[in-house]
């Protein structure tokens, strides 16, 4: 039964082909724009989420105070007896690695001048294999376990400031956990860039042992927990928090200030864009349908005289709008797919975002939910818009409709 109405609706869209073509084209462009903008936003969220998870670990475990209070002495809220906790965490099948880190700060000096630095003590082999290529090494070789003496890697702007090259000797100065000042001679192993100039001016990496010796402690600041999959984050957090009630387990999202800021901003920008595109498409379809309906007033009167109910006509006219909107949605989906696939292969670089020194590849995600949602929105909006413009004509007195010229 419905097929006849659909067939009639399709035949009606072909009456004025040029007008229908323009309408479908605009609906298609709108759909493609929504899908590409949405896909780009999703790609950005995913990249930032991965970057954050790679940087901090999917989960970060530490003493509750570590995350809320400022310490009075270094590592005041650090973790003791890390080996036992690590073994316990690694027993979980979804945990791929547990990396300790020691956060410290102080001065780094080349003998002539001293510069404020922020230090990170890590387990080099595990850190660099688990995290993958998150740093660009611009000179020297990455830190490794089993170094002969204390070694560091430093940001390229900091290295330039101190005129340091791989092989140079520098001195680290920091307060120990007892509050006295400690100094330590170290060798520069490598110079790196994180892509964030502000960070490259301050950051140094060293191994855990060197940092603990500098601070005169056995504690670490926190443990980063790396899971086998991003989706395991929430489940693993609940399990680990239940197993270690005295400690606090944060997810990468809790730490991801930049991720949240970008997501909030993009959601608003692309939400407004989507709204504007939706309004344009609805207006174009409404306009095409109201012209089509006015032209067919007498025919509508004829069909009403022959006993067609207004709601049957509303249905076929909504279907006609749906054919325009749905046809546009299908074409738009094909365009968006083609552009997304092209971008995956073309490797086009985006310029560096504010506060960064390196660009990133432009990809657009192909997300099933986004595609289905956009297509459903197009179809339902165009159906509703058509029904809205048709309601007056289908309810007008038959005599008046028949007399319409």
């Amino acid at each position: 039964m419905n097929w006849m109405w659909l067939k009639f609706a399709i035949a009606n869209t072909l009456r004025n082909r040029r007008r229908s073509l323009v309408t479908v084209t605009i609906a298609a462009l709108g759909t493609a724009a929504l899908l590409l903008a949405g896909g780009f936003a999703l790609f950005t969220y995913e990249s930032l989420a991965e970057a954050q998870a790679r940087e901090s670990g999917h989960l970060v475990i530490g003493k509750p105070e570590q995350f809320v209070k400022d310490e009075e002495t270094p590592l005041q809220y650090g973790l003791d007896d890390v080996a036992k906790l690590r073994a316990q965490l690694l027993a979980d099948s979804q945990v791929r690695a547990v990396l300790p880190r020691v956060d410290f700060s102080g001065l780094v000096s080349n003998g002539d001048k001293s510069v404020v630095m922020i230090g990170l003590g890590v387990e080099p082999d595990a850190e660099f294999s688990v995290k993958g290529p998150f740093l660009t090494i611009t000179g020297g070789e990455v830190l490794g376990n089993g170094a002969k003496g204390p070694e560091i890697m430093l940001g390229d702007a900091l290295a330039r400031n101190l005129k340091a090259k791989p092989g140079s000797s520098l001195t680290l100065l920091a307060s120990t956990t007892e509050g006295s000042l400690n100094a330590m001679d170290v060798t520069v192993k490598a110079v790196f860039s994180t892509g964030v100039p502000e960070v490259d001016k301050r950051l140094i990496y060293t191994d855990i042992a060197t940092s603990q010796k500098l601070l005169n402690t056995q504690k670490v600041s926190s443990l980063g927990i790396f899971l086998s999959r991003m989706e395991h984050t929430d489940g693993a957090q609940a399990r680990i928090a239940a197993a270690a009630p005295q400690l606090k387990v944060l997810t990468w999202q809790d730490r991801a200030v930049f991720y949240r800021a970008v997501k909030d901003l993009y959601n608003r920008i692309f939400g407004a864009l989507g709204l504007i595109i939706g309004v344009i498409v609805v207006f174009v379809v409404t306009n095409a349908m109201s012209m089509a309906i006015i032209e067919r007033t007498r025919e509508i009167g004829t069909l009403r005289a022959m006993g067609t109910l207004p709601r049957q006509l509303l249905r076929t006219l909504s279907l006609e709008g749906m054919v325009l909107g749905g046809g546009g949605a299908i074409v738009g989906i094909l365009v968006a797919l083609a552009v997304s696939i092209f971008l995956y292969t073309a490797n086009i670089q985006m310029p560096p975002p504010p506060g960064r020194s390196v660009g990133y590849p432009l990809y657009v995600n192909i997300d099933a939910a986004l595609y289905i949602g956009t297509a459903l929105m197009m179809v339902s909006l165009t159906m509703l818009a058509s029904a809205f413009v048709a309601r007056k004509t289908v309810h007008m007195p038959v005599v008046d409709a028949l007399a319409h010229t």
Partner: protein
Amino acid sequence: MNNTHATPVVELRGVHKTYRLGEHVIRALQGVDLSVQRGELLALTGPSGSGKSTILNLAGLIDTPDSGDIVLNGQTVNALNEEARTLLRRDSLGFVFQSFNLVPVMTVAENVDYPLFIAGVAPAERKERVAAQLAAVGLQEHAHHRPDALSGGQRQRVAIARALVKRPRLVIADEPTASLDSHTADQVLDLMRERGHAEGAAFVIATHDSRLTSRCDRVVSLLDGRLQ
């Protein structure tokens, strides 16, 4: 007339109807009584504005009188709402228009099929009845053509087939021959007469054309909203 004793197909009793056209009030019908018998071919004649179309609209249930009763197959329809009148039109009335009013995007067969489709008749039966109607009006070879491929006379024959396919008791025809040349008009009128008698459907035809009146069973002339 045959069956004069039976219930009339449609009856107008003391019907008044007034229109407003801008500033003017047009008294289209001023107390009309008319009854149409089963299978009858009734011609309404009269000058423009005499009320012919108004009678057709009222008998066709697409308009309502200001006063008086419309009785269709013995049922008074004044009180029915729009939906009930639509369904009554669907099930028991056929329409033939001056400019044919076929749906251009449907084939000839689909146009004839449409009334059966909206009435919910089973597809197999629809197919059979459509083929029979097209054969009866001599257009079976044109079943899959679009109306714009046909001549005016052929289009009006499609319209007659479309009006009769649902086996109505009454067909309303407003100037059905006015768009046709006189030879074709004669043919179309003969077809209406023949098909109407064959199907037992009454035709109420509004016409200016005095030559047609000789072919009708009865002629009623109107002047200023009154029967003469």
